[in-house]
């Protein structure tokens, strides 16, 4: 069973929800897809860490073979190549690794070389396997890292929590592809509602079943709850806006391990598992 935890904006509580769900699920896998700033490991403090690098393929030119025909320059929609005075220039940072220039080159002057853009760290924290994707600073896209993370967990039988990057762009789409269910975390503000609506469009487009966790709930009127009721969206849990929870979290501790908050996350886990089982019944 794979759960993707996502939200339209950063700082809403994706990591709080996914870390704590993985912790209460016990025999589980936590995958940090927020490759620009993975921070789930701060809570799990995994050990026995294994590191693998992630590389993309970019073209390299053999100037002796290049005919200066410019087929590659004209083909590249990202303008990663320029042909100047019979010299072919390749801009590594602009290249999207599509490989088209290499396929089109009539004289085999272009070949692939590896460019390392980040790494994946895998470790163990009690019964949780912790996998973090890390994009090197300055790199344009973390998508190749997400693809490797998804490959690594494709045959995973244990419950898997995918901590997505914020927003609703391509990198989030890659992260939710294999998910059986999407948990949308939202905070009850006007901005939070706006961002929830964006991720809602995304999960509907991908035809994924979903439910909402409202984080930072206060006793006053709740914009997200009203929206969910009006649109018949399942509210899985309401996490209170409490300084105790904030303090545990900012100490880098897992709230679900405390007596006060264990119940909250255990109930959330039961709720999402029930939702997925219900989905399986209604879709089979």
């Amino acid at each position: 069973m794979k759960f993707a935890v996502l939200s339209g904006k950063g700082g809403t509580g994706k990591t709080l929800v996914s870390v704590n769900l993985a912790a209460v699920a016990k025999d589980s896998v936590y995958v940090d897809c927020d490759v620009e700033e993975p921070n789930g490991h701060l809570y799990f403090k995994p050990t026995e860490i294994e590191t693998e690098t992630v590389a993309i393929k970019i073209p390299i030119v053999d100037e002796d073979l290049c005919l200066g025909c410019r087929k590659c320059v004209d083909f590249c929609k990202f303008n990663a190549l320029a042909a100047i005075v019979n010299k072919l220039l390749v801009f590594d940072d602009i290249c999207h690794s599509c490989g088209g220039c290499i396929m089109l080159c009539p004289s085999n002057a272009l070949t692939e070389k590896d460019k390392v853009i980040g790494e994946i760290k895998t470790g163990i924290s009690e019964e949780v396997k912790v996998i973090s994707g890390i994009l090197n600073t300055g790199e344009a896209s973390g998508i190749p890292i997400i693809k490797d993370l998804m490959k690594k967990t494709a045959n995973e039988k244990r419950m898997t929590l995918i901590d997505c990057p914020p927003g609703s762009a391509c990198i989030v789409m890659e992260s939710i592809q294999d998910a059986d269910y999407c948990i949308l975390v939202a905070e009850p503000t006007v901005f939070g509602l706006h961002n929830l609506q964006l991720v809602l469009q995304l999960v509907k487009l991908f035809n994924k079943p979903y439910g909402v966790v409202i984080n930072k709930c206060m006793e006053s009127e709740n914009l997200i709850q009203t929206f969910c009721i009006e649109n018949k969206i399942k509210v899985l849990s309401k996490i209170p806006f409490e300084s105790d929870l904030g303090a545990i979290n900012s100490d880098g501790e897992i709230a679900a391990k405390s007596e006060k908050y264990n119940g909250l996350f255990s109930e959330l886990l039961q709720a999402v598992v029930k939702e997925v089982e219900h989905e399986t019944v209604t879709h089979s």
Partner: protein
Amino acid sequence: MKIAIPADEKVLASDVCMSFGRAPYFYIYETLTKMGDFIENEAANSPGGAGVKAAQIVADSHADILITPRCGENAAEVFKATALQIYKSKNGSISDNLNAYLDDKLSKLENFHAGFHGVGGN
């Protein structure tokens, strides 16, 4: 000698465009014939790499001199492979800048910026 200048509009009274890579046009002036032409910058609406493509277009026009308010690192890298010299434009129209260059009143552009990519730029 050919001089290239990024232009907002296809008239000599137009301001020099604030952007090199995404300028709608380039004015290409030939000092021997004292004639010039506006060419379209096909890179202006590129999703990415506009600087590289615009530099390719300017290099292909056989310009020897580029007068621009600013220029990105990638475009500068392309120009490095050519003999083209880059001068910094002053406030004013294309013709003002052309005359300023011909009167030797412009200085070389020394600083090249990293890409703006939709964030900032002023």
